């Protein structure tokens, strides 16, 4: 126990002597939140769309009005009326427009006759997400214009979708907080624990530790212990700071139980990742390999965790990976605890998975560790 504590203390001292690392460990995930939250906005806005009206009839007018309503309301579009279709298409190709709506001659006439009236919609397929958004919005706008022709009575009877949100209003950047906390844990686990052994090995310091009666377990547990302590402090700091940045006051949102459960999720996630790092990096001898591996692993674990995009939309193989990815369970549990006021019952599956993962990973990391030159 004394030996384990000596290793732990050594690491803490060394970590604290590098204040830049401490500051970066907290700042980087928060900056990540700000960047991600603003680059992946939930709803797309101000997409440039051109309208080419070759019909000039009342039907065309109604379509344009419906589109303008989307422009001034949710600001989905920025519309520009263009007289030449050729000019509009050139703009689309050059990326000036995300979409071009062409109202062909005879559109109003076909509409009045009740026959099929068709609009042309050209999209920039290279911008898939923006193109999909434009298509959805235009389809909706056109459907709105069609509805004017149904009788009033039918409209009353028509089912109307009114979205009801189950939980308190959550902005997109707020939904990213669990992911950012997990990222902080990942970065923490990567730069403490096993990384110290890689650095010691690189600097030739490990030799002198191996010469002492320290056994494998003292070394691995000491390093995991210090890493756990440091990473937990960083993760909680990141949780509080990123919540404040995105306008959440945690002390109003969380009960003591909720906070303790969040802490449990953070601790178990950290332990699991610390163990995993020992399995992967325990025998490496150069920090550069850790840099390369770390960048790679961060993406591999972070993106399929549901932190940014729902897992349900993944292809089957990626979904299968998501189900064994510990970060998936961490994100799910943190989201439930933060935004849904979940109790232990709702997250016990996540916690069980994380606990089993942590035990297996730390045991495997200890077994894989080589206490010899």
């Amino acid at each position, binding site marked *: 126990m*004394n*030996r384990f*504590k*000596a290793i732990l*203390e*050594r690491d803490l*001292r*060394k970590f604290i*002597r*590098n204040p830049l690392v401490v500051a970066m460990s907290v700042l980087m995930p928060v900056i990540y939140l700000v960047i991600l939250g603003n680059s992946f906005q939930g709803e797309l806005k101000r997409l440039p769309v051109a309208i080419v009206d070759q019909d000039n009839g009342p039907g065309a007018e109604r379509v344009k009005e419906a589109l303008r309503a989307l422009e001034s309301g949710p600001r989905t579009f920025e519309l520009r009326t263009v007289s030449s279709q050729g000019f509009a298409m050139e703009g689309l190709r050059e990326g000036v427009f995300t979409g071009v709506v062409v109202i062909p001659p005879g559109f109003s006439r076909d509409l009045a006759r009740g026959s099929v009236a068709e609009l042309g919609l050209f999209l920039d397929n290279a911008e898939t997400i923006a193109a999909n958004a434009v298509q959805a919005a235009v389809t909706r706008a056109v459907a709105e214009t069609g509805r004017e022709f149904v009788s009033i009575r039918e409209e009353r009877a028509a089912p109307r979708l009114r979205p009801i949100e189950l939980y308190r209003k959550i902005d997109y950047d707020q939904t990213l907080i669990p992911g950012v906390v997990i990222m902080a844990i990942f970065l923490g686990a990567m730069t403490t624990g096993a990384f110290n052994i890689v650095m010691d090995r690189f*600097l*030739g*310091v490990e*030799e*002198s*530790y*191996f*010469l*002492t*009666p*320290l*056994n494998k377990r003292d070394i691995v547990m000491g390093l995991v212990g210090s890493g756990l302590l440091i990473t937990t402090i960083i993760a909680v700091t990141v949780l509080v700071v990123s919540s404040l940045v995105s306008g959440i006051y945690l002390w109003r949102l969380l009960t003591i139980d909720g906070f303790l459960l969040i802490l449990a999720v953070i601790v178990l996630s950290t332990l699991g990742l610390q163990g995993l790092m020992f399995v992967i990096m325990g025998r490496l001898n150069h920090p550069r390999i850790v840099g390369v591996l770390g960048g790679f692993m961060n993406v591999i674990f972070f993106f399929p965790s549901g932190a940014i995009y729902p897992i349900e939309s993944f292809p089957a193989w990626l979904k299968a990976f998501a189900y064994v990815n510990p970060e998936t369970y961490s994100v799910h549990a943190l989201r439930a605890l933060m935004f849904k006021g979940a109790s232990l019952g709702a997250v016990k599956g996540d916690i069980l998975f994380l606990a089993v993962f942590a035990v297996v990973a730390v045991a495997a990391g200890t077994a894989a560790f080589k206490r*010899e*030159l």
Partner: protein
Amino acid sequence: MYAIETENLVKKYGGLTALDGVSLKIPEGDCFGLLGPNGAGKTTLIRILTTLIRPTSGRARVAGFDVAKEKASVRGAIGVVPQAMTSDLDLTGLELMDIYARFYGMGKKERRERTDELLSMVGLRERAGDLVATYSGGMRRRLEIARGLVHRPSILILDEPTIGLDPQSRHVVWELLEKFRKNDRLTILLTTHYMEEAESLSDHVAIIDYGRIVALDTVEGLKKQIPQKDTIELTVSNIDMGKAKEEISGHPSVSSVAVNEDTLIISVDNGANAIPELVDRLKSLGAKVTRVTLKEQTLEDVFIHFTGRPIREEEARKVSFLLGAGVPRQWGK
């Protein structure tokens, strides 16, 4: 009872044979020097004796414990100063000593006393609160010697303890080792490729080359084993050189005399003692001795005799601290 005993140790790295059947017996309380050029297998032997690597075959016992089977006991009994500087730069000297003492399970009071004592002895007490990163190379080496002794081991093993140090720091380290040896009744095993170091510290010296022990004896004993003697050159005047040669050859410790113009080149046992007598003999014949030089037989001569070449000192100096003692790179050259 031997402090260190090895039996036919062999270590192979793939096709390279780093140790080729080393058998040694080092008595308790001895200061044993292992002398050899870089890549001779010194560090490999040390690493096997200190449980860091496993031998391919053969057996070794350190402090009575088998290095392969009783690793923990071996580690508790030995203090080691590795070749590369291995102190954490981000810790202070005091913290480093304390943390190592804890690795050996020492209690708080004992740790404080021992750390204090050792840091004073190695002259680092004033700097104990500073980060190791601010220490000079000589200070770091002294700290590592103190670190190696923190748990009062019975055997101290040092791998090239003065490599890369300036001559002054080197002498400080030698004095320290002498002092600790007397105080703690230590057995010391040190490797070196500095002749002077082996000669001034060691009771026994083994010469290792290409993974084999090629000679083992006391320094004096080794010198006796080789035909080269001390050489005295006497420049004389006022005498017939043939007569002078005849007179000198008659001295019991002189084995041969050559004449080069007005200089007698004399091969002799224990030259320092012989000089006054030889000079007196010449003077009694009315000769005037104008110049005397003595070239004493050195361990270098011994080394050349046993290995067929001078020790590769220049090359050895290039070893960087970070690379330090790695897998022998120039093996079998």
